[in-house]
């Protein structure tokens, strides 16, 4: 299947004349070398694909280039080098009207500090993208009302942003980004500005929405736990480059670099790793098979009580495969020293 977003060797440099600098630059220049030449590498030679219905979480600390990368996908930034395709279209080749049309029909974005228009009510903010594409008043209102209900803000539609709490404001931001029924949904640290408790609630809400809508999602965060909780795949960024891109299970089990390992060290792996990741070919084991998407932690009782060497796992494709009990116990209890 063709990826929805495909990035190949994408560069984004900031500085006086980035294009000619990139052309003249020798390969293997590090982030610091580039900085010494007076340029900042926002995105440094990134290649990745996002497939339909997938949730890719881009994780990195501030200044790692994650926000810049997502802005390259939507062409809020023009890239310096490489190629980005959205639905097979080279977005750098689009004319202004085509780009506007693409955003009006296919893309939605949620921002860290909400980016709401202060002079518009909740309903008017949500209706904004619909108005911009010239939809008629009646259907605009109906659709906006529908999304406002979807994010649970019914009854507040005539409020102004300043009259809402942070969590409610972000619900407006989410509703606005969903109003045009986008195929691709960009979320730039949507919950970072919120209190921890509200953040948790919003993550649940977000998962509920995604289960209903099944969008292709690029989600940015600096919070590794949030990434683990939400992602189908995680891309970890540092100094503009992607350090590792993989499923949460695999990142936790096999961090590719020391930098990634720093994040995974503190993580309770048993909460992250699923049974399906540990299965091996060969023996299927005996007894009732466990679900493929069960975490090791949820299987703790079975792992300790069941004395068999191999525990059967019901894989999504219908087959039953075996999971070595010792490997699972190592994850649950930590490796035997």
């Amino acid at each position, binding site marked *: 299947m063709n990826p929805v977003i495909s990035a190949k060797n994408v560069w984004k440099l900031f500085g006086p004349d980035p294009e000619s600098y990139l052309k003249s630059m020798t390969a293997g220049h590090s982030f610091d070398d580039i900085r010494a030449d007076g340029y900042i590498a926002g995105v440094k030679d990134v290649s990745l694909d996002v497939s339909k219905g997938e949730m890719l979480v881009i994780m990195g600390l501030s200044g790692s280039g994650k926000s810049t990368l997502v802005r390259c996908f*939507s062409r809020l930034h023009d890239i310096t080098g490489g190629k980005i395709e959205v639905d097979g279209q080279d977005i750098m080749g689009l004319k202004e009207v085509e780009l506007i049309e693409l*955003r009006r029909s296919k893309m939605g974005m949620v921002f860290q500090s909400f*980016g709401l*228009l202060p002079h*518009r009510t909740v309903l008017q903010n949500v209706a904004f993208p619909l108005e*911009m594409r010239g939809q008629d008043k009646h259907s605009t209102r109906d659709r906006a009302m529908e999304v406002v209900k979807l994010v649970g803000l019914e009854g507040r539609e005539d409020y*102004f942003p300043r*009259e809402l709490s942070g969590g409610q404001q972000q619900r407006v931001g989410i509703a*606005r980004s969903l109003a*045009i029924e986008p195929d691709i949904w960009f979320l730039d640290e949507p919950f970072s500005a919120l209190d921890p408790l509200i953040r948790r609630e919003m993550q649940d809400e977000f998962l509920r929405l995604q289960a209903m809508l099944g969008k292709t999602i690029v989600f940015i965060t600096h919070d590794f736990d949030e990434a683990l909780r939400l992602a189908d795949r995680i891309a970890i960024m540092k100094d503009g480059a992607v350090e590792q891109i993989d499923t949460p299970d695999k990142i936790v089990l096999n961090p590719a670099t020391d930098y990634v390992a720093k994040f995974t060290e503190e993580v309770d792996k048993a909460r992250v790793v699923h049974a399906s990741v540990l299965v091996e070919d060969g023996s299927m084991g005996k007894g009732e098979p466990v679900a493929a998407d069960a975490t090791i932690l949820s299987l703790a009782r079975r792992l300790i009580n069941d004395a068999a060497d191999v525990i059967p796992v019901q894989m999504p494709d219908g087959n039953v495969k075996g999971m070595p009990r010792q490997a699972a116990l190592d994850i649950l209890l930590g490796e035997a020293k």
Partner: protein
Amino acid sequence: MTIVSDANLAVPEGGTPAMAVRRKVLIGLFGFAALLTVLRPWLPEALIRLPEAMLLPWSDWLDVGFAWVQNDLGLIHVTREIASWLGFLIDAAANVLYGKSRWPNFEAMPWSVVAGCLAVLGYWLGGWKLALLAGGTMVWTALMGQWKWAMETMSVIVVAAPVGFAVGLLIGILAWRSARFEKAMRPVLLVLQTLPFYSYLLPAVIFFKVGPTAASVATIAYSMPPMILMTIVGLKKVPPEVVEAGKMAGCSRWQMLRSVYIPSARTEILVGLNQVIMLALAMVVLTAFIGMPGLGAKLLAMMNSFKLGRSFEIGVTIVLLAVTLDRLSKAWVVKQPEHFEKGTPWWQRHILLLIGVATFVVFMVLAQVIPILNEIGRRQSLSMGSEIDVAIKGFLNLSWVKETTGFIRWFFNLWILIPTERALLYVPTAAVIAVVTGFCYALGGRRPALIGVLFFSIVAGFGWWDRAMITLHSTLTAVILAMVFGMPLAVWAARRETWSARMIFVCDTAQTFPSFIYLLPAIMLFGITPFTVILSILIYTMVPVIRYTIEGLRGVPPELTEAADMSGATRWQKLWNVQLPLAMPTIAVGLNQALIFAFFMVIIAAFIGTRDLGQEMQRTLAGTQLGKNFTLGFSVVFMALTFDIAINAWAEKRRRILGLA
């Protein structure tokens, strides 16, 4: 001379090689100036003042240039076209407000209708207080029998302010879109903000003929610069995420501007509107000098004939009008939209609009039945002009009052004003330029110093040196006196939160008064004398001095004053070592504003009778000597900008050093 001592203070003891170079340059400049001054009796005349033969005929060249633009380039046709449009708008406004008998013929609106509707507007914007202020001002104006004059003044403002707002907004947007255009605009705006008002008036008269049209053109031109600046500031301040949200919503460029940028910059744009209105009022009062009837013209006439009572009443009206316009427009800046609960009926959502319409209708009808609500004639008015006049003059004639004012006048004239003015006129031109350059160098470094040499040399080259020096003298003395009196007051007020708040409130209110008004108390107390000029500038410039000193002192981070307290500093030690040094950049901004204000005011004061640039400019108003008017005007601009650039450079440098930027 005070400039010298100021500059010397800025020279540090010992220090780095860079400092040593700096000291040598300063000693060189001031030494050169001192030497020239001492040797003056033996110097040839050509070294003291630029000889006539060396002066270039700037005025004639400018006149030729203007004539070319006006006739050969056809600007006069453009201005005629604009004039006919503006004339139509002003006539329409004038018809509605005071029933001018020219097409389009509307009936004059009864004063009670205006008062009632403004009160409702005030209530909508800011509750009972503003309703009372707006309605009360109108009632006072009508009762005092000044309705027609006030409406003559307002008829220009209601046309000039919206036009100035719209054009300013447009230019601001263009400047924000194009960095190159903004770069080109900046110096133009700086010049416009320091250009004396006569240089607005004369071109307006030449291109638009004497009267309301010329008045409104001058008013529009004068009130526009802050609108342009505020628009640029506001548009640049729109949060990047809001912009990105707009782009992601698929806005076209026009949609971005209309639906995202302008609404998000609402606050700054409305602050710009507030300034447009206030400057328009300040200017329209001054257009009395080019024959614009209204409050300004009456005030000018009353002051000229020394009718203090009537002057006082008109002054109060102008002040009330200023405060009303200021408060109403500021209330609009902070007004936020409110939402109504679901199911609120239409009439409840628009209750104030309905009340406004009802007020309009009711007073319209009442005014037909009760003539006093329609118009208050001269005989019916409650003006106590002559009584107040007698009272004021009686008070001034009391022997102790007379002795006090006489003494003050004598003291300042004999011991301060005359000696310093003579000294400044005695000093050779080159020496003055050297001192100014040294002052700029000490404050801002090389660039401001080069600008200082260039600008003051241009002033010398324009050939109005002695008059320029008299202008400079009045300005500097008044500002220095304003600091001497204002700063201790500000330091005292800054000690308590409540005093500071009250003082700043007073200053902010005073700053909305048209500058012309500040002549009134000075004339009342000291009659028409040179000291009056200094006093009016002094009062006018004390406002920014006090305001910014308090703001600077209150702005010192509390942990620093607490650290000083815990180090056992006395109040004086704390003030000298912690608060004043940290407040200095802000105080410098106030000082800068005071200087610009002073240059503006000293020109207005020309009509009392000065011998400076202003007097000569006033004379040009009678004729068509645009070239002469502009050389005089730009003499003021170049002097003001020299100080502006040097002081701003210093304040910015200090801010950086103190980590306040």
